[in-house]
């Protein structure tokens, strides 16, 4: 999983937030299943060549949100039942994501119908992948 957990230090988004967002996405897409082990702070920091405090901060946010759980002496795992994000945050995330996608579509001059079809296609792809993954 850590291969898909990459970060871009030159991005304006802080590294801990990139880690938090990437893990959230991996869990949401089913690439990281409930109960799966995630790399230790030390290992991920070494692999990405970043300050371990940064990784720890991202992980801590995920633990606070109930997405990751720490088992003392064993490591860090995806929670058995990761919660859906709180209502307000969910709304904000959805709206922000939709706005970014809409902006991209408008910039590229994509017609509304095509833009909507693309979203449907991506949704279908992710849901199939997630479903297939749990079987």
């Amino acid at each position, binding site marked *: 999983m850590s291969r898909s957990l990459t970060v871009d230090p*030159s991005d304006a988004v802080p*590294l801990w937030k990139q880690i938090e967002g990437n893990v959230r996405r991996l869990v949401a897409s089913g690439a990281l299943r409930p109960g799966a082990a995630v790399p230790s702070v030390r290992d991920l*920091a*070494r692999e990405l060549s970043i*300050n371990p*405090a940064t990784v720890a901060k991202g992980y801590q946010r995920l633990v606070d949100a109930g997405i990751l759980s720490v088992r003392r002496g064993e490591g860090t795992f995806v929670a058995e039942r990761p919660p859906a994000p709180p209502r307000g945050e969910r709304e904000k995330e959805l709206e922000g994501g939709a706005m970014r996608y809409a902006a991209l579509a408008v910039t590229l001059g994509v017609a509304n119908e095509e833009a909507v079809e693309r979203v449907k296609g991506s949704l279908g792809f992710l849901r199939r992948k997630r479903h297939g993954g749990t079987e």
Partner: protein
Amino acid sequence: MSGERKTGAPAEAAAERSLPSSSSSSLSPVVEARDVLVRYAGSPSPALDGISLSVSPGSVYALLGRNGAGKSSLVRCLLGQQKPTAGACLLFGGDAWKRRASLMSRVGVVPEDPDAPPAMTARQLSAFSAKLYPVWDAPSVEARLARFGVPAGTPFGSLSKGQRALVALSLALASSPELLVLDDPTLGLDAVARRAFFEELVGELADRGTTVFFTSHDLAGVERMATRVAFLTGGRLVLDEDLETLKARFRRLRYANEATEERSEFGQELAAFDAVRVKVRGWGVEAVVSNYGDEAFARFSSLEGVVDAESSALSLEEIFLAVAGEASPGRNA
């Protein structure tokens, strides 16, 4: 020296705690410069002109600046190797110049160009250094050198630059330092040695939470490690800020600018963002702004005459260029 440390340090720590300025001893800085002035005889302008900075425990503080900016003078003062013309440098709250011997036993240093008697092997250097520190983990030196693939029995003079840097790091970490000072440690290192150096540093940070003060030409490395960044230019600190806030407020804006009846002058619309560099190009305007905000950008995008506005993130190198001007620190190394 070890005796001096054992009796001297706690007494001073206790004295520090009773000072009204340090309400929380856990947050008192590991390194501090107070109004440091350094003037060399025969030089018209000071090498350091009123430097004040503070490195908090557990942080990774990166000092950036071109050659001649005053980095070496500042590092020497901080390590108690040089007495400032005025002002003071403190390590763990104690005067670095006056109490150098006892304070430096708590500091690990990797100098820019690690120097040692060329005939001595890393193993011999470790045995020699062990006598200078109250704590010395000789097996850790052997273990690290083995990880690095650097022979412990080869004379220092026969090692490559990268190998010498890795020996210096192994020695610096063997005293379990509370503070690690790295003076441009990866300058001139090949990719393999650089990677090994950073991996070991990350491990040390993860295991011990050591405070790090480092200077570097390697802005990509700084961007991955540092929690705080300072820019030194012409003996003055032009910037001293958490990396996260620094990267949030600097952005590049690009937009086409159409002259309208009300607004014929280009660039004025950028005032809200504190632009530090503005270039008018054929297709429009490109600017680096130092006070970016999403809301201000949304307002800006809808201004009359501003067309196709877009903002993009800046790397630390680009921010350094915008603030310190001309050549990047990497280009005249």
